[in-house]
C-alpha cells in the first residue's frame, strides 16, 4: 500500500473517531482527489499535516467538510429532466392535497429554485413543501440566500427554456452588477436543513425525492443503503429522480422502484416491475 493511501485511511479514521463523520463508504477515487485538494487549499503540505490539524485544531473540521462536499450545481441542469418532471410527474402529484418534496444534497440550492419555478408554473407550489437538505452547513446558507454569479445566468436561462419554462428566466431574479438574486418568494415553502444521508434517518413522507449527482460519490453498499432510505421515505407511488448518468443496477434496494423514464433516471416506488440485479 502506498504512503498516500495509508494517509487517506488515517484521514477517514480521524473524521470518524474524532468528529463522527463517516466517509468510509465514499467512492475512493473521488475522495482521494478531494483530500488532495484540501491539502492544497489549506497549504498543509501533506495529508498527515491535514490529519494533525483535524485532530487538534478547533473548528477545522468544518473547513474540511466544506472541502469534501464540493457543492457544484446549476439551475435546470439536464433540461429534459425538468421537462419530464413537468409532463410525467407533476400531473400525478397534482392529485395530492399536499405535496412533500425532498431535495437531498441540494448544494448551493440551484435545483431547489429550479423546482420551485417548475411547481409555480404548474400551479402546484402553494400546496407544496420542499425539504432541501445537505450535510454542508455553509452550502445550505448559500442556498437560502439564492445569490449567484451573473455569468452563470445566461446558461441557466437557456436551460430554463429547454426545460420547458413558460416565462422568461429573468422574471425570477433581480440582477445587480456581478450577481443575481433569486426571487425570495420562491423559497416561501422551502425548509433548508442539515441532513446527512449516511447517518440520519427518514424525516418525512415524500411524494418526490430529487437526489441528483450525490450517490455518484458513494460506493455500491452506501448507494444501496441510501436508496433504501429513499424507499422508506416515499409514499406508495412516490417518485425518485437521480442524476442522468447514475447506475442503480447493482443495488438490491432498487428492486422496489419501477421505471418512469429510465433514460432520465426517474423512478416510481412500488411500481411493480422489479428491476433485475446486475451481475
Amino acid at each position: 500500500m502506498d504512503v498516500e493511501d495509508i494517509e487517506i485511511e488515517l484521514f477517514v479514521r480521524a473524521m470518524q473517531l474524532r468528529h463522527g463523520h463517516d466517509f468510509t463508504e465514499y467512492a475512493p477515487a473521488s475522495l482521494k482527489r478531494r483530500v488532495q485538494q484540501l491539502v492544497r487549499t489549506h497549504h498543509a503540505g501533506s495529508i498527515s499535516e491535514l490529519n494533525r490539524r483535524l485532530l487538534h485544531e478547533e473548528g477545522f473540521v468544518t473547513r474540511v467538510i466544506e472541502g469534501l462536499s464540493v457543492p457544484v450545481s446549476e439551475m435546470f441542469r439536464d433540461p429534459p429532466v425538468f421537462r419530464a418532471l413537468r409532463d410525467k410527474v407533476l400531473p400525478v402529484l397534482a392529485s395530492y392535497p399536499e405535496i412533500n418534496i425532498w431535495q437531498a444534497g441540494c448544494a448551493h440550492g440551484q435545483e431547489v429554485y429550479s423546482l420551485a419555478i417548475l411547481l409555480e408554473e404548474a400551479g402546484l407550489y402553494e400546496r407544496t413543501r420542499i425539504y432541501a437538505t445537505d450535510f454542508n452547513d455553509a452550502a445550505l446558507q448559500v442556498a437560502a440566500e439564492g445569490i449567484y454569479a451573473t455569468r452563470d445566468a445566461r446558461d441557466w436561462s437557456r436551460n430554463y427554456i429547454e426545460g420547458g419554462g413558460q416565462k422568461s428566466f429573468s422574471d425570477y431574479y433581480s440582477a445587480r452588477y456581478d450577481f443575481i438574486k433569486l426571487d425570495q418568494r420562491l423559497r416561501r415553502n422551502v425548509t433548508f436543513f442539515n441532513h446527512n444521508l449516511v447517518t440520519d434517518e427518514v424525516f418525512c413522507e415524500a411524494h418526490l425525492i430529487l437526489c441528483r449527482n450525490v450517490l455518484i460519490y458513494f460506493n455500491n453498499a452506501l448507494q444501496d443503503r441510501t436508496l433504501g432510505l429513499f424507499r422508506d421515505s416515499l409514499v406508495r407511488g412516490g417518485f425518485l429522480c437521480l442524476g442522468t448518468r447514475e447506475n442503480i443496477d447493482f443495488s438490491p434496494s432498487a428492486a422496489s422502484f419501477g421505471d418512469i423514464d429510465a433514460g432520465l433516471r426517474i423512478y416510481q416506488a412500488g411500481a411493480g416491475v422489479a428491476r433485475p440485479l446486475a451481475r
Partner: protein
Amino acid sequence: MTARAAIAMGCSAGGLAALQRVLPALDRRLAVPVVVCAHTGSADVSLLVELLGRVSALPVVEAAEREPADPGVVHVAPSGYHLLVEPNAHFSLNVDARVTYARPSIDVLFETAAGAWKDGLVAVLMTGANSDGAQGLRAVRQAGGYALVQDPASAESDVMPRAGLDIAGADACLPLDQIAARLNQLCLP
C-alpha cells in the same frame, strides 16, 4: 516486461480525427480496457461514440458509472462529468469543478487510472489546444506507467502534447500513425 494492463487516452481539439486514425489500427485481440477522455464541447457524447464505433477495431461504448472497465472495449467518458477509475478498475463519475477548464478532464482520468493500474497503465496524450492531461501524465509516470505522447509536429493542435512533454516527459513520442502499433506491441501478451 510483461504486457500492460490498460490504455487511457486523452485528446482535445483535433481529437476526433486522431482517434479515427488510432482506433482502427488497434489489434482486435487486444484484451485490455481502453479508456478515452476527449473534450468534445457537446452536451452528449453519443455522437462521438457512434462515429468512433464505425471505424474502431474494438467495440466503443460510453463509460458507465459503477461498471467494470471491460477488456477489449473502448470506453468513452460522458460529457459533463469527470470519469474516474476506482482502485477495483470500475468506473465512477463526479461533477466536481472543472479541472484546467475541462469536465471531463484528462488529468482526472490519468491520475485515477494510474492509481488503479499503476505500472500496468499506458497513457496516451494527443492533439489538443490546452494543457489538460500533462499533470495526469506525470502521475502516470510516477506510478511506473508508460507515457506515450503524440509527436507535436504531427498533431493538429500541438499545445497539449507539448505541455505533456514539458511537464511529464514521455517514454515515447510518436507520430500519429505509429501510435496504434506501439500500443499493440505494449499490450499484446
